[in-house]
C-alpha cells in the first residue's frame, strides 16, 4: 500500500499537471460550445506557439513571458483569420473538424520543415523549482500554469455569464436568430471568440514549451485526453473545462501512484465513462 506522502504528492502533481489539459481544453471548449466549430488545429497552434517560445528563448534569449506577449496576439490574429474562412464558407460542425484536422497536418509539416522532427527541449531554470509544504513539494511552474488557467477560466466564465456580450454569445450558440433579437452583432462576437480561443492556445503553448516534449508528432498526443476534458467540462464552459482537466490529471496521477503506471489511461477513461453513464445534470 502506498504511503500517505506518496498519495498526497501524486495528488498534488496530478492536479497541477491537469492544469495543462484544462488550459488546452478551454479554447477548444469555447469555439465548440459557442460557435459550433471543433478546432482540431488548436493543438497545432499551441505547439506552434511552443516552438516559437523555444526558438526565441534558445536562439535569442528572450524570456518566455516576453515571447508570450508577442505570440499570443499573433495567435489571436490566426484565430480571427481561421474564423474568416469558416464564416465565408458557412462551415458546419463536422466540416470544421475535418478542415482543422487538415490544417493541423499542414502546420505539423511546417513545424517539421523548419525545426525538423527531432526532439527539442527548452532548458530553463523555471522548469524544476518547487515550494515545500510539509512533506510535499509544489512545482512552481505547474502551479503558475494552474493559476493562470484558473484566472483565465474564471474571467472568461464571468465575462460569458455576467455581461451582455456573454449572454448574447450563449444565446447565439443556442439559436443564431435570438442573437439578432439582442441587437448584438453575432458575427463580430464570433470573430472575437475565435481569436480568444486561439490566444488561449498561445498561452497553453508557452507552458508546453516549458514543461513538455517538443516534436511535431506530439501535436496529436493531447488530442484524446483534451477532447474528453472538453466534453466532461461541458461545451462552452471554460471553468468546467479547467475543473475536468484537474480531475483527469488527478485520477491519472493517483492511478500511476497505486497501480502499474501503464494502467493509468484505463483509470482516467473509466472515470470518464462512469461520469457519462451516471449522466449528471451538469453534463
Amino acid at each position, binding site marked *: 500500500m502506498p504511503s500517505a506522502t506518496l498519495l498526497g504528492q501524486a495528488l498534488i502533481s496530478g492536479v497541477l499537471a491537469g492544469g495543462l489539459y484544462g488550459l488546452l481544453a478551454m479554447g477548444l471548449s469555447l469555439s465548440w460550445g459557442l460557435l459550433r466549430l471543433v478546432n482540431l488545429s488548436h493543438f497545432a497552434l499551441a505547439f506552434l506557439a511552443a516552438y516559437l517560445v523555444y526558438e526565441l528563448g534558445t536562439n535569442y534569449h528572450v524570456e518566455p513571458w516576453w515571447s508570450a506577449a508577442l505570440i499570443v496576439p499573433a495567435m489571436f490574429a490566426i484565430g480571427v483569420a481561421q474564423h474568416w474562412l469558416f464564416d465565408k464558407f458557412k462551415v458546419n460542425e463536422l466540416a470544421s473538424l475535418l*478542415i482543422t484536422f487538415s490544417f493541423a497536418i499542414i502546420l505539423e509539416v511546417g513545424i517539421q520543415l523548419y525545426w525538423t522532427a527531432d526532439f527539442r527541449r527548452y532548458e530553463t531554470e523555471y522548469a524544476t523549482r518547487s515550494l515545500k509544504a510539509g512533506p510535499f513539494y509544489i512545482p512552481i511552474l505547474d502551479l503558475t500554469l494552474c493559476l493562470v488557467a484558473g484566472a483565465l477560466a474564471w474571467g472568461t466564465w464571468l465575462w460569458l455569464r455576467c455581461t451582455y456580450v456573454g449572454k448574447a454569445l450563449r444565446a447565439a450558440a443556442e439559436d443564431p436568430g435570438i442573437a439578432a433579437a439582442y441587437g448584438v452583432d453575432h458575427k463580430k462576437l464570433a470573430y472575437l471568440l475565435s481569436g480568444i480561443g486561439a490566444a488561449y492556445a498561445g498561452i497553453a503553448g508557452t507552458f508546453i514549451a516549458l514543461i513538455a516534449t517538443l516534436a511535431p508528432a506530439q501535436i496529436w498526443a493531447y488530442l484524446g485526453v483534451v477532447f474528453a476534458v472538453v466534453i466532461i467540462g461541458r461545451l462552452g464552459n471554460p471553468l468546467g473545462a479547467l475543473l475536468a482537466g484537474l480531475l483527469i490529471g488527478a485520477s491519472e496521477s493517483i492511478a500511476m501512484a497505486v497501480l502499474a503506471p501503464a494502467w493509468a489511461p484505463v483509470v482516467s477513461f473509466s472515470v470518464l465513462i462512469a461520469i457519462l453513464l451516471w449522466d449528471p445534470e451538469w453534463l
Partner: protein
Amino acid sequence: MNANGLSRLGAVVAIGVLGFLPMARLPAFYDSFLYLVFFWVSLSTSWALLSGFAGYFSLGHAAFFGVGVYVTADLTTKFGWPFLATLPVAAALPALLALGVGAIVFRLRRLRGELFALLTLSVTFVIATIILNTPIDGGGGIFMSAVPLPNLMPTPTGTIYLLGFILCVASLGIAWKVVHSRLGMGLFAIHDDEDVAEAKGVPTLRYKLIAFALSAAIAGAVGGVHAMYVGFITVSGTFELTVPLYVVLMSVLGGARSWFGPAIGAAAITALLYAFISGGEAMVGRAIVGVILIAAILWLPDGFVPAVKQWLAKRRRATPPPAIAEVAPVMPAIKPVSDKVLLEVRGATKRFGGLQALGGVDLDVREGEILGLVGPNGSGKTTLINVVSGFYPLTSGSVKVDGIEIGNLPAHQIARRGVARTYQIPRPFVNMTVLENVVLAATFGMEHSSPFKWGGGSVIRDGGVMSDTFDAAHDPSVGVRRRHLPRRRGRSASEIRDEALHWIGFTGLAGKEEALPAALNLHERKFLELARALAAKPRLLLLDEVLSGLNPAEVDNAIRLVRAIRAQGATIVFVEHLMRAVVELSDRVAVLNEGKLFALGAPREVMRDPRVVSIYLGKAYAA
C-alpha cells in the same frame, strides 16, 4: 436490357475481374496498394453504417478494428488457429463489444452527438490499455511471420488482396442492402429526428444496435486480415487516433449518407497519400494533401456523391415532372361512434422530478370518436399525448389501446399498435423529401417486419423511377382500400409508395413530393405531419395543435381534412386552443387543468360550464 440490368452486369463483371486480378501476376505492389484501398474502403464504409446513416458520430472505430487485429494475432500465434478460422471470431468479438457498448450508451437519456463520440473514443483508450497491459499483447508486440497464409492466390500478397477485396465487396454489399431496406430508411430517419422516428414506428434502439454491430463486425474482420498484412502488431500502431480521423475524413469527403460515398472518399485519399512517397517530397507532399483536403471540404461540404447527385438532379429538372395525384374526394359518410372503448386511460400520472405534469387522469375514448382536449397552458394536454404515444413512460397508472396495456411500451411498439401522432411544431425528417417522409411512416406504421425486409427504401434512394407508379397514385381509393385490410406483411415497395402518394394527395401536397421540408411553408409542413400520421393507417390519431399558426382559410381546410380522416374510421384525440374548431369538430370535449381531468362532455355544454370558463379566464371573471 435496361439500364438497371446493365449496371448490374457491369458490377458482376467488375467483381469477377478484380477478384481474379492477382492471377494476372502484376507486380506485388499493385496488389498491395489495391489491398490498402480496399482496406480503407471497408473501414470507411463500415463506419458510415452507423455514423453516416444514423448520425451517431463514432471516434471509436479503431477499437473495433483493433480488437479484430488482436483476435487474429493472438489466436494464430498463441493458440495455433489457422488464419482463416480466426476471421469469424475477429468479426464476432467486436460485434459483441459494440452490442455491449451500444446497449449501455444508447439508453442514456441525453446522448448527444459529442457524448457518443467521446464514449467511443474512451472505449478505444480503455481497450488499448487493457491489451497493452495483459498477455493479449503485454507491450512487446506480436510477430506473425510464422503464421501460415493459405494459398488462395499464386502469391501471398495476392491472397491478402483477395481477402481484402472480399471484405470490401461485402462491406459495400451490406451498405447497399442496408440503404435499400427498412433498416436504412429507419437509420436515415434516426439521423434526422430520433424521437419522431421512434414515434413513427422505427425500433430505434434495435436499429442502432444492428448498425453498430454490423459496423464493428466489418471493422473487426478487416482488422483480422490487416494483422496478417502488417505482420508485426503493436498497440500504439493499431489503436492510433489518426485511424478514426482518416476514416471520418474519407466517409465525409465521399458522402457519408450514401452507400458508396465513403468508398470514393477512401479511394481518393489513399491514392493521394501515395502520390507523395518519394523521399525528397514526402513532407511537402503531406502539406499538399492537407490543402487539397481543405479545399475539397470547403467546396463539397456534404461530400462528393451528394454534390454529383445534386448536379445530376439539376440537369434532370430541365424536364418538368408530370403533375401527379389530386386531393382525394372527401368521403361523405360519417360513421356512428361505437360504444367500444378504444383508448382507456386510468390514473395516468407523470412526474418530472418534483413537478407533477399529470396527476391521475382517467379518460375513455370511444372508437370513431373525435375528442377535443383543451385546457390552459401547462395543464398537461401535450404531456398526455406524449404519454399515450410513448414519448414519455408513465410514472404510474395505465394506458390501454383496444384493451391492451401500452403504458410502458417503447414508442415504436405503440405506433405499431395503431397510434399515430403529429407535433405542434412540425418535425419532418429534414433530409428526406416529402415523399420519403410519408413512405417512412407508411413503412413502419402498424406493421411488424424484419429490418432487412425489402421495403420502401428503394423509393427513397432511387427517386428517379417513380413514373411507373403514377397510375396507381391517381386512384384515390388505393390507400383507402388498403386501410381496411388486416395487417399485411411484406408489402412491396411500390405498394407502399402508392399509399404514400395517396396520402400526399389527400392532404393537398401533390406536386411537392420531391421537395425537401425546408422548401415548405408552415401550412404545408403541418399537412405533411398529417400525411405522415395518416400513412401509418392509425386507429388512434393524436393531433397536437394542428391549427395553430394557420390563417382562417387554412383552418377551414384543415377542419375539413380532420373530418375526412375520421370519416375513414380513425379515432381522433386533438389538442386545440382554437375554440371554434373544438366546438365544430369534437363529439366530446375533455378539459384538463393542473394535470387532472377537470370536465368532460358535449362541446357546447362543457364550454359553457362556469368552472371551465373560470380556469380559462380567472375565477373573478367567472363569478
